[in-house]
């Protein structure tokens, strides 16, 4: 008995679960990587809907479903252009990425058009058998680009069959595209200017420390002392942005939460001089550095503050400074 060829719907049903799993892993990995870098982005994923799959196979006259490259897709929407650069790095590190395509590169200086950065990503390292060889399309957009793409992209680029968009409406949509570029540029410029305000970086780091500290201890603290210590430890993170430091802190707190809770619980309400210093949010930064590179911490600390203070942090963290 000759078996009948599978219908496109059957092909989709057979393939979709593996692509869904792939997209889930990609989303989770991207979220983790971005969080570790302190980048706030929205990551979403989807698999190609069955109708869209069937239509694309027919419209493009594909001979094999493997020719569809966006069966799984994940989208990263970043607040800033600079964050997109970091997000791309995160993807490059986590996955095998190929075919990076920055849509801006194909536009002439006098031309407006859909913006975004795309690539094809596959998993690296130990890959579940059913996901070997599968790719997920990654899209990286800024919030402004997304604000244009989400409601307008399909209307402009894929209008319903048999309709034509009047030039005046098309022009109106492209005027908005110009605004997205202006918005992104201004947003980045404003942020850069804010970062140049004296002490702003320290305050940003304190804000990140503060949220972890409250979650761990629910205690108040001496803000002036915090800023003083954070500023003195600046050489430890001089080459990194406040967001990157915040990302490292989040990863550190996630990894060492029980130990941190133990330290603060032990030093709560006891009358040792060092406890007053340990019950401050910057202690999280100091503990992180003890884990990361205690020698550099010691060297940065020594010119400004007594080493006996630092010794208390080492002991509280379960390390000897000697």
């Amino acid at each position: 008995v000759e078996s009948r060829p599978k219908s496109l719907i059957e092909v989709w049903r057979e393939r979709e679960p593996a692509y869904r799993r792939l997209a889930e892993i990609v989303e989770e990995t991207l979220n983790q990587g971005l969080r570790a870098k302190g980048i706030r982005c929205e990551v979403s994923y989807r698999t190609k809907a069955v109708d869209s799959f069937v239509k694309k196979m027919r419209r493009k006259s594909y001979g094999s479903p493997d020719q569809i490259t966006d069966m799984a897709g994940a989208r990263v929407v970043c607040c800033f252009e600079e964050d997109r650069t970091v997000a791309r790095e995160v993807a490059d590190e986590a996955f095998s990425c190929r075919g990076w395509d920055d849509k801006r590169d194909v536009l002439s200086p006098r031309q407006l058009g859909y913006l975004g950065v795309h690539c094809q990503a596959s998993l690296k390292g130990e890959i579940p058998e059913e996901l070997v060889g599968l790719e997920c399309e990654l899209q990286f957009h800024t919030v402004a680009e997304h604000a244009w793409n989400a409601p307008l992209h399909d209307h402009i680029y894929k209008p319903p069959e048999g309709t034509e968009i009047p030039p005046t409406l098309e022009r109106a949509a492209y005027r908005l595209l110009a605004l997205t570029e202006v918005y992104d540029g201004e947003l980045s410029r404003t942020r850069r200017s804010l970062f140049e305000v004296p002490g702003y970086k320290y305050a940003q780091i304190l804000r990140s420390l503060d949220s972890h500290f409250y979650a761990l201890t629910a205690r108040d603290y001496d803000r002036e002392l915090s800023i003083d210590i954070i500023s003195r430890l600046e050489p430890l993170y001089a080459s990194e942005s406040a967001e990157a430091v915040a990302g490292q802190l989040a990863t550190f707190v996630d990894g060492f939460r029980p130990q941190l809770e133990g330290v603060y619980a032990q030093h709560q309400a006891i009358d040792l001089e060092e406890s007053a210093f340990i019950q401050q949010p910057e202690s999280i930064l100091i503990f992180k550095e003890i884990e990361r590179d205690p020698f550099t911490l010691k060297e940065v600390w020594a010119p400004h503050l007594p080493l006996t203070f630092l010794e208390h942090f080492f002991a509280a963290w379960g390390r000897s400074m000697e």
Partner: protein
Amino acid sequence: MNFNFGQLRVKAVIVHQIPRKDQGVPIYSEIESPLNDELKVYIRSKIIQSADSSSSFPIELHEETQSPVPKLITDYLNTGEGFVEKSRAMAEHLAKIQTRTNTAGLLTLVDCSLGTTRGLAVLKLERQSGISVDQETIDGKRTLSMEHIGRLMLTDAAKVFKAGVFQLSGGTLEAVASDHQRVQVDLAHFFLSEFLGCRLVAEPPVATKRFFDASEKFINERVTDPKTKMKYQIALAAELNSNRKQIRPRAFAEENVNTKDRHPYCEFMKEHGAAGAIDKNLLLVESRLAGLQMKFRSGATVYAPPAAIAGGKVTVEQDEDRARVVIHDELTSMKGKGRGKQTEESD
């Protein structure tokens, strides 16, 4: 060896006073010492400052020991019972073996936990003295009066003392000790061997070789700049040739290794089981300390005595991806060298 001192918690403490031989009678505590949270945190810090210091080293129980302490420790860690009685038995053993040369001390046992693992710290502390100051009014005038106190047990300045920390991890006893008097061999032997009934995990010649091998491996595999390589190699030879009786890898790093390389070096040493303090013994490495050998991809080999390098007669410079050895010296002789063993020609 995996002591997570970050999770160390002090639960109970008992102290016994042990005099020098024939210089008084021991005072054995009959109950645990009263403890508040401050004391617990303070004692915890002191244990960590000692047992995690660069002077600490891994130890193990000695099967052939005459000391009852190993069995007492193992029993206690297994059952968690009889803290007071077992501590007293240890104190009695210490009192019995004390000599006139051993200082009087306070044998302090600390019942503790390291996460979910039960632990026991055995400390031999010495009485210390200091001056306290208090505000006072004399003849209606304010002053700060001083008082000499000779009954202090632990002070901020006392960072390292004789300590052994034990934990049962997955049924295996793990132990670490620190002893600032370790350089005085007899005293060290007394605490570690006669009292604790323990011995070093690695014999000194083996531990010294392991330190040397791991350090060289780090220099060759992790350091790329030839000048830095040479600097570290010379420091390594100097450390081994010095008069110091003990090698402390962490202290070696602080003194000789560039800041950015220190942490990677210490982590590397930990991975290679060479992070603890070592009683230096050159038996297995002496022949490798006479000079520095540099090998190049081309097959060329340069050998130089450390003094020639330290004196600047031999320098290494880096030119992009090529290293250049420069010898600023007077050429005294030159001779050919074979290729090593020749294979015998077949008939």
